[in-house]
């Protein structure tokens, strides 16, 4: 039947490899069960990697979520011409896929030491960001770079919910005496919140698992969980495969929780706000 090849494929190339890693996370090199690897996640280097990853992912998720929502609301607004909306949605579609190595180069070329924006800020506005301590290779620079795909992703994720806001609700509010702010606070915000929070969580998980952009931008200069794992797979740093498995397990635990909460929020929204 049609599901045969699919089942085999899923088992061999999705389920087995992942389960294998998780099992390995709780074993040592001989295969004996142990929690030592999980404990190893608390060591300074690894803990620091988690902290950095959380900061960059969290910051890009929050900023991306808020700004993305603002843009989506502006696009869906009554005065916005159709062509502008379609153009920006297409641009969002492209930008959300423009991650990885090329994105790193683009930001190096824009806010790197010799980047266009850096130079303009210095020569035209007299602001030298590098003298002030900024570097595109740091957490702020990386967050700004991540924002390039986080923001459009948020726009695409939240657009259905924004489009689902009925014009009649606003008219009913007006009829009942509410101002625009009152309507936004009492109706729009509560209705959008589950979708907003869910999308923000997806953004967070998305950033947490990203490696190509960071690697192309900073090499191993910045300590992220994904960079650490990358180096470990190449045999460069930890030389402890089981610790690597624990790292992978930790990552999936975090992204897994994000997705579970996202699904619950989506179910709530579908149930209540149909």
């Amino acid at each position, binding site marked *: 039947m049609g599901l045969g090849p699919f089942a085999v494929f899923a088992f061999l190339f999705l389920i087995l490899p992942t389960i294998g890693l998780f099992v390995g996370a709780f074993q040592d090199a001989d295969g004996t069960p142990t929690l030592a690897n999980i404990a190893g996640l608390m060591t300074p280097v690894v803990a620091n990697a988690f902290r950095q990853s959380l900061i960059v992912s969290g910051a890009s998720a929050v900023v991306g979520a808020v700004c993305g929502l603002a843009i989506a609301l502006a696009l869906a607004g009554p005065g916005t011409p159709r062509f502008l909306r379609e153009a920006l949605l297409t641009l969002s579609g492209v930008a959300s896929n423009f991650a990885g190595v090329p994105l790193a180069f683009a930001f190096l070329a824009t806010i790197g030491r010799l980047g266009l924006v850096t130079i303009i800020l210095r020569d035209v506005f007299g602001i030298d960001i590098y003298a002030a301590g900024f570097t595109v290779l740091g957490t702020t620079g990386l967050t700004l770079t991540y924002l390039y795909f986080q923001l459009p992703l948020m726009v695409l994720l939240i657009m259905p919910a924004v489009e689902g806001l009925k014009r009649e609700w606003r*008219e009913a509010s007006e009829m*009942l005496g509410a101002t625009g702010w009152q309507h936004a606070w009492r109706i729009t915000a509560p209705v959008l919140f589950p979708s907003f929070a869910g999308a923000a969580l997806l953004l967070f998980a998305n950033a947490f698992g990203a490696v190509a952009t960071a690697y192309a931008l900073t090499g191993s200069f910045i300590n992220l969980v994904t960079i650490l794992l990358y180096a470990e797979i190449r045999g460069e740093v930890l030389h402890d495969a089981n610790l690597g498995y624990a790292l992978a397990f930790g990552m999936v635990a975090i992204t897994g929780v994000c997705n579970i909460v996202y699904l619950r929020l989506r179910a709530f929204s579908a149930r209540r*706000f*149909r």
Partner: protein
Amino acid sequence: MSFLTVRGLRKAFGTTIAVQDFSLEAERGEFVSLLGPSGCGKTTVLRMIAGFETPSAGSVTIDGEDVTHLPTRTRRIGMVFQSYALFPNLTVEGNIAFGLKVAGMKREEIAVRVKEMLSLIGLPQLGGRYPVELSGGQQQRVALARAIAIRPRILLLDEPLSALDAKIRVSLREELRAIQRELGITAIFVTHDQEEALALSHRVVVMSEGWVEQIGTPADVYRTPRTPFVATFVGTANVLPCRIEDAAAGVLSFGGARLEAGHPVSGGAGETVQMALRPEAIAINPFEGASNSLAATVRDVTFLGPVVRLRLMLAGDVAAVVDLHGEGARDLPEAGSAVMLWFRPETLQLLDRHGHGAARA
């Protein structure tokens, strides 16, 4: 001075004119329906009264106050939408209380009023439910309560029953009528369903293509339609092209037969005018030769329950419809047979030859 005065209202969207010269004076406590097919402009008129659309010309005055350019928020109107438009994140109580909360009413007073409203619409147990848990009829009742809770000066209803199942539509219609009569709140009701308009209203405004065709009580509009549109849209009508023989005496001819309207008709001798005749006003007459008799051939006979509908062909290939009920529905003629039709003079109505009849209150 009427409670609601709408004068010369006009709305153009680009080059399309949706509403042409709409005027209406409604008394306090009156229930007025705007009746017409889709696209006739009735919803646009309602939305201009509500303040959701700005008129291209004309004025709206409520209780002496010119509200034409005021924002909806300050007009003190209540509106019920076809799609209910209940706030999904608030419970039934939350929805009903919304306007009161926004106005800054005290919590205890709000609770009292909400309770009052829930019992008015007959849903005292459902206060804690969310809209998604309610049926269509229940949601619309809540929407009504929400609109009335704020004690609006005028209640505007935009096809509120159209989205509901047939049976619910009828029962909710009766409830709506009872509530409106009990509270004495002025109501403007938009619908394309003539039965609703006739059952609910004190007066009906029949509209077509942006124009007012006729304003009158349900009986007026049904028994004395003024234009061909009104005659055929409200109920069924036979429209006969007749020749005026004697205008002052109200004598006309159709296909050689002599017809008496029983009242003078306007127009010159020899002019062709349109006369309307309701299907239920016609009887099958065994006597020949009397005036107001028309020869016809039966095309088919359909049994509809309370009524038997005959389709017939008159002289000059003019089709006609006759509804027989009660004992008149026995001894039915067969398809293909020739019969004589008879009607009383006063049931023959003269229709305006141009479309939009003068809109008299």
